[in-house]
């Protein structure tokens, strides 16, 4: 996992939760941060989809387990799919 993608995802999550990006560890399970409830999760995924430029499929949604699993869905810096 490259740092650039993790930084992007941490920024999105921090923006929704109102915390600092450095407080969003890559291995944090979805919902593990205090402000990360079901409504915040909705906002995070919608913001992520806007960044990604497409909707996640239901299978991708179900596979979101950690912050890193979100970052995995972003294209790599080279522009190829992760």
């Amino acid at each position, binding site marked *: 996992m490259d740092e650039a993608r993790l930084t992007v995802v941490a920024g999105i999550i921090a923006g929704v939760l109102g915390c600092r990006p450095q407080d969003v560890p890559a291995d944090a399970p979805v919902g593990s941060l205090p402000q990360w409830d079901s*409504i*915040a999760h909705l906002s995070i*995924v919608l913001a992520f989809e806007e960044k990604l430029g497409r909707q996640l499929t239901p*299978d991708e*949604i*179900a596979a979101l387990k950690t912050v890193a699993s979100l970052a995995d869905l972003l294209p790599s810096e080279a522009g190829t799919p992760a």
Partner: protein
Amino acid sequence: MGRQALRERIESERFDLVPLNRWQAFRLTYPWTRDIEFVTSFTGSGATRSLRGWYREMIRANKRRRFVHAIVPRGGSVPIGIHTMSMYGYRSCRLGIGIQDRSWWGKGVVQEVRARLIDHIFEHSDVERLHAEVVGRNLPSVFNYQKLGFAHVGTMHRSKSDPVTGQVHDMLIFEMFRDEWMRRKAERNG
């Protein structure tokens, strides 16, 4: 085992979970079918329901194998949502929940109520497997199941349509077994 306990009033930290019969559940929820956002989240379809149609569609609570509980904030009298449980097959139970009162959204109602009811189910029945099906884009519901420890075990692709929007949905299947719940509970309790 004491399945009759499932038809009793149950208390969680902030809520009374009041058992309803089929008629009571129908009377409570029929007005909520006019709330398109709620009914879409609860059933996967925002279609307008007739009285007869909703009576036939709603879970047929019989307090033996199918149960509906109104979720009532402690000290209040107006339900904010409902929880459904339906026993079927081999020691299996299908779960459903809907919170209609928006002032309670994002306040942990689903987590609290469901955790309390799951404890109650496992304590008072021989159910070994909990099961739920969720519209794939219902992000809060997916979140809530996974946070409680349910595993995504399959997807029924393009298996449900909403006649109002014309959208076709994938349905995500979640399940959790008794031993997994007990293991997580033991971990939580240290």
